[in-house]
């Protein structure tokens, strides 16, 4: 059957199991939108307020489900509006297929109206990208894009489709859903070496990264820790891979990590890193990082293992498959002395914890926790509120923390939350800040129009809190351009978009508002007052080591 390129595109998306795409129409994708109209019973299109929101939504969908998220935008400004979204997905290894229209093939290179070299622009922020040259290649290119986006270490792939290719006709033959590249365990030699080191460990630490989510290796990671009696910590990207209430779990570590988690990692003699990058936000000063410990790094991306140089024992393979082979080689042990030391760290952490019962960051997130179901996705924006959510929110199910880690994209939250909702159909939460929300609040329109059950907890401190925190600590309190002092009435604003909202100043009010929010089948924003001088603690100063950790800010 001969179909137009745009029909072939949509048919191929359906064939690949796509049930929802996010996007925004325009001149160079109008044919694609006509095909989406034609096949609307088989594939849903969610119109956002801005292409960036659509890209983040596709990303949020992918993070929450593990499936490929799809976003569509027109050429020129539509395509460039995707860039932040694509980069966000790239740095967090999120499988995404971005489809852009472009001017006719014969106009490419002439600076035609809304022509932009989006393949060139996205070269360093995609796993791969394509400009489709002929309608004959279109379906296979889309299939290959899905394969690359979802195989190995996932990431975004862009497919740019010139207008004439969307119009041209060709035979479409349906094919089965692509299978990802086969995963494999690491080599026996690497596994044996790792087992040898682990069996000699006295103070092992299991460090869980985002790769554990991708590899769906939660049970294996816990089994590893159980076998060798190790505590578990995670990177920011690893949050939700281990249930928050798991007895071995110490929480996130790194710049704003839990004290016990960071200390345990610091004092460990063997760190077993599972799908985690040793990002500067994790290590602080690399030269001083984990100097006394041996590191075993299990990762599917060989290039990631190499980045740390020779101090690491690389184990290059899929985490789940590798752990399945590794665990039987390990001696089952208990390490009471190490556990005692870890318990002491926990006691110290508890003593330093925020024990206030008034409405502060910890109380806000703890109160939110009471209303979560085990499957609730929690999206965030970027800033202090994000770190508070990372530190205090409860997770029971993998893939429920939807947050931009590597790029730290303010404005990610609304799109991310909307996408997570479409992926899970769960009442969704967004924890945002007044600054970040200002970057993405246009997507309130999308959430309201699509009846997204969404609780927005806006931690409103009136400042760009995270930057202000640095200014307080490292720039002599020169609060340059971080005091927002805006007159925005977030309650009225949300209502203007068609949602509901409440302002809260106390824990009791927050409690009541949350109850109402979770029983509202739509958007409910809670404008929650937070003091501007709250800090995210502990804090490992940039480039510092564990000895420089700030646990309390002196008055």
């Amino acid at each position: 059957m001969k179909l137009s390129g745009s029909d072939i595109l949509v048919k191929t998306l359906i064939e690949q199991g796509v049930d929802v795409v996010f996007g925004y129409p325009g001149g160079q994708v109008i044919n694609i939108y006509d095909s989406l109209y034609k096949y609307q019973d088989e594939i849903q299109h969610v119109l956002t307020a801005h292409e960036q929101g659509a890209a983040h939504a596709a990303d949020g969908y992918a993070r929450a489900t593990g499936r490929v998220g799809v976003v569509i935008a027109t050429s020129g400004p539509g395509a460039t509006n995707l860039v932040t979204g694509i980069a966000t997905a790239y740095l967090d290894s999120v499988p995404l297929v971005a489809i852009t229209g472009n001017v006719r093939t014969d106009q490419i290179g002439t600076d035609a109206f809304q022509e932009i070299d989006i393949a060139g622009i996205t070269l360093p922020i995609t796993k791969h990208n394509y400009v489709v040259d002929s309608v004959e290649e279109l379906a296979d290119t889309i299939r290959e894009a899905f394969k690359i986006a979802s195989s190995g270490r996932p990431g975004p792939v862009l497919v740019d489709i010139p207008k004439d290719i969307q119009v041209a006709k060709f035979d479409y033959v349906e094919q089965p859903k692509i299978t990802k590249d086969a995963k494999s365990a690491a080599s026996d030699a690497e596994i044996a070496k790792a087992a040898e080191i682990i069996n000699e460990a006295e103070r092992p630490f299991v460090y869980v990264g985002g790769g554990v989510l991708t590899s769906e290796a939660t049970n294996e990671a816990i089994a590893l820790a159980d076998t060798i009696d190790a505590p578990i910590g995670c990177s920011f990207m690893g949050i939700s891979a281990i249930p928050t209430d798991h007895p071995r779990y110490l929480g996130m570590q790194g710049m704003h990590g839990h004290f016990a988690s960071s200390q345990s990692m610091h004092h460990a003699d063997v760190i077993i890193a599972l799908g985690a990058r040793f990002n500067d936000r994790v290590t602080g000063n690399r030269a001083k990082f984990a100097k006394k410990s041996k590191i075993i790094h299990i990762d599917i991306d060989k290039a990631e293992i190499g980045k740390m140089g020779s101090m690491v024992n690389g184990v290059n393979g899929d985490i789940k498959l590798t752990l399945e082979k590794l665990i039987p080689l390990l001696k089952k042990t208990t390490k009471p002395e190490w556990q005692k030391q870890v318990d002491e760290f926990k006691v110290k952490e508890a003593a330093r914890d925020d024990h206030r019962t008034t409405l502060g960051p910890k109380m806000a997130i703890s109160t939110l926790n009471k209303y979560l179901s085990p499957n609730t996705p929690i999206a965030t924006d970027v800033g202090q509120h994000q770190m508070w959510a990372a530190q205090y929110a409860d997770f029971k199910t993998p893939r429920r923390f939807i947050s931009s880690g590597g790029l730290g994209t303010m404005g990610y939250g609304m799109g991310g939350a909307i996408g997570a909702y479409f992926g899970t159909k769960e009442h969704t939460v967004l924890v945002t800040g007044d600054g970040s929300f200002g970057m993405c609040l246009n997507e309130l329109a999308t959430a309201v129009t699509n009846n997204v059950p969404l609780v927005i907890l806006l931690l409103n401190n009136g400042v760009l809190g995270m930057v202000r925190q640095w200014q307080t600590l490292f720039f002599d309190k020169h609060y340059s351009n971080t005091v927002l002092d805006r007159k925005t009435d977030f309650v009225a604003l949300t209502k203007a978009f068609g949602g509901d909202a409440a302002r809260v100043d106390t824990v009791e009010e927050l409690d009541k508002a949350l109850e109402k929010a979770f029983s509202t089948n739509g958007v409910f924003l809670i404008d929650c007052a937070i003091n501007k001088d709250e800090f995210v603690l502990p804090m490992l100063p940039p480039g510092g080591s564990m000895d420089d950790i700030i646990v309390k800010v002196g008055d």
Partner: protein
Amino acid sequence: MTKFNIAVLVRDKAGVLNRVTSMFRRRRFNIDSLTVSETETDKYSRITVTFSGEENTKDQLVAQLYKLPDVVKIKEFKPDESVSCELLLIKMKNDAASRDDISAAATAFKAKTVNYTKDAIILKVTGESKKIDEFIKLMRDYNILEICRTGVVSLEVGGETITKE
């Protein structure tokens, strides 16, 4: 610092060279020379890259290259298991004072005179990079007008090929 020489077999598609060099730039790999050429099949092109660095820089470069879907195969060449050569074209000012010296050097290096006018002499030298470096160094004593060199191309000695394990 070690000198490395690797060949990268890539799918022969528009923009592939751009992908490779863009990755080098973004990850700050410092390349000494890079040549692109046809191969025995029109499906693939071959990029030969030479660079200096530490062993782990090379491992990182190779691992990052393998992440590009258009990269099919990578082969590292050790000097004693491969033949390498490049080609130099060098244009010297032709004047009475230096003509004889240039000509003597050219003979010693088996350089060929490929063009001769009253203003300039163009010489062609082929061989390993070291030989070409040395020839250029010699010529610096005279008046060099222009230099163009191709960068290194290499093949493994014996019956092995990049596509054969």
